[in-house]
């Protein structure tokens, strides 16, 4: 079974002044343990696709299936990671990691221990008793990922999770998060503006057109699996692909 199946999806936003076609005729299937990136000009509906997959909004027509079911907020298979870490400033790192478990009433001892295992595994255990304000941006984003993973989601939705960080941290965190996602064998969808970032992490890259968002191109990447994102960036193949996708997005921008 595919993790995500989107069939003939259309989405029209309603507002008092007008109606906006946000997405048109999207067809997309994502398999288990695949890493898919969505790039495109701003306002093309990248984040909207994530919202549809979590069940935050419903499609105007067409179908979205996650693990073969229509997604809803109460019970979905997704873990969402935002641009900002959104850690609660009044909770310690440990309590922040349990936040999702508490909300879903899953905060059993066993689940909590599993979450703590993750923090040990990925080098966060020394920060457990600290508050978010005492951590660097990169660390905080790692905590946010662990909080998401604590819920053992089938599918990770990454909504520009690196864009609020400085360049150095971004590259570092890219490697780390890629490693965590691969080790935990998760399926992931990354939405980003950064073409290089998409190339460095993905198995497939989907290029959306300007609004209304349509799938303009799909690139399947075949890097050797032992390359880290950082190493991928340096390859000739990555540079060529960058030029191709860059051109595709530029052409779209001209249409606006």
């Amino acid at each position: 079974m595919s993790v995500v199946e989107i069939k003939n999806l259309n989405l029209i936003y309603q507002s008092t002044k007008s109606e906006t076609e946000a997405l048109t005729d999207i067809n997309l299937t994502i398999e288990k343990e695949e890493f898919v990136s969505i790039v495109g000009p701003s306002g093309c509906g990248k984040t909207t696709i994530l919202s549809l997959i979590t069940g935050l909004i419903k499609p105007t027509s067409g179908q979205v299936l996650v693990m073969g079911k229509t997604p809803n907020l109460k019970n979905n298979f997704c873990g969402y990671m935002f641009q900002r870490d959104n850690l609660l400033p009044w909770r310690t790192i440990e309590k922040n990691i349990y936040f999702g478990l508490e909300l879903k009433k899953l905060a059993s001892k066993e689940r909590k221990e599993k979450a703590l295992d993750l923090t040990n595994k990925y080098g966060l255990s020394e920060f457990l008793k600290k508050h978010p304000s005492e951590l660097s941006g990169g660390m905080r984003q790692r905590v946010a990922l662990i909080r998401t993973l604590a819920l053992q989601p089938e599918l990770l939705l990454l909504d520009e999770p690196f864009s609020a960080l400085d360049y150095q941290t971004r590259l570092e965190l890219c490697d780390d998060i890629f490693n965590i996602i691969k080790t935990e064998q998760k399926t992931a969808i990354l939405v980003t503006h950064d073409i290089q970032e998409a190339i460095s992490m993905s198995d497939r890259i989907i290029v959306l057109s300007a609004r209304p968002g349509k799938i303009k191109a799909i690139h399947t990447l075949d890097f050797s699996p032992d390359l880290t994102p950082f190493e991928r960036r340096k390859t000739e193949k990555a540079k060529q692909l960058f030029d191709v996708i860059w051109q595709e997005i530029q052409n779209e921008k001209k249409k606006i």
Partner: protein
Amino acid sequence: MKRKKFSAAHYDYLRKYSLRKISILLTQILVLAIFITLWELLSRYEIISSFFFSSPSKIIKTASEMFKSGELVYHSSITLKETFIGFAIATGIGFAVAFVLWCSTFLRSVSEPYLVVLNSLPKIALGPIIIIWFGAGQKAIIVMCILIVIIVTILNILNSFTSCDKQLIALAKSLGANKLQIFAKLILPNSLKDIVSTLKINVGLSWIGAIMGEYLVSRAGLGYLLIYGGQVFNLNLVMTSTVILCVLASIMYLLVAMFEKLMNKFYGK
């Protein structure tokens, strides 16, 4: 936590820091002492009229006489009671209303113009209506107090509830949180600081409410003493009541400040 050894510069810094704190406190006391002494001397040598300005010694004398006759406790306790009841009811209801309005965006939009008008209305203007509806007694005073406190409470707390970071709410929703969970785990801890500062404001406002109410209708209480003293030109009584008010209001403020510290401890930061 481990005790660390610090450099000499650090101890020097600490010493300067505590020295500064002490000197601020001493200066504060000094200012008060100079003010009282000056007041006392000026009125004793009749440079200012002791009839119009009273004097610290006369205030102490009046206060001790009032204490002996039981008047001080009697009037203070009446005003305290009104203030406290007004404070508690207004804060409680205000909080509940703010919660309901937070829950429903529809109700919030409906109530908005009413709240704005009620907020800008000087509550004292409702005095005559309150007296007619609730009688010229303590009930009217408490109602006046509630009216003055409640609108500000609703507006402040609602404002704080709705100012919670939208992204945090989006996160909680993506984790499947229901409305009550969002309130308990996000909104409330996020608003804690604002709630405490609202309590602080409310302490002051409920004193205003109680005294204003007593100006309107009372037969007892500190506000009554102030009005009565003014009417019979007994400035000693007026000054003494004012000082007592100052002391009581400070005590109540300190209690809220202690509560704030406790809360901060509870929430770690």
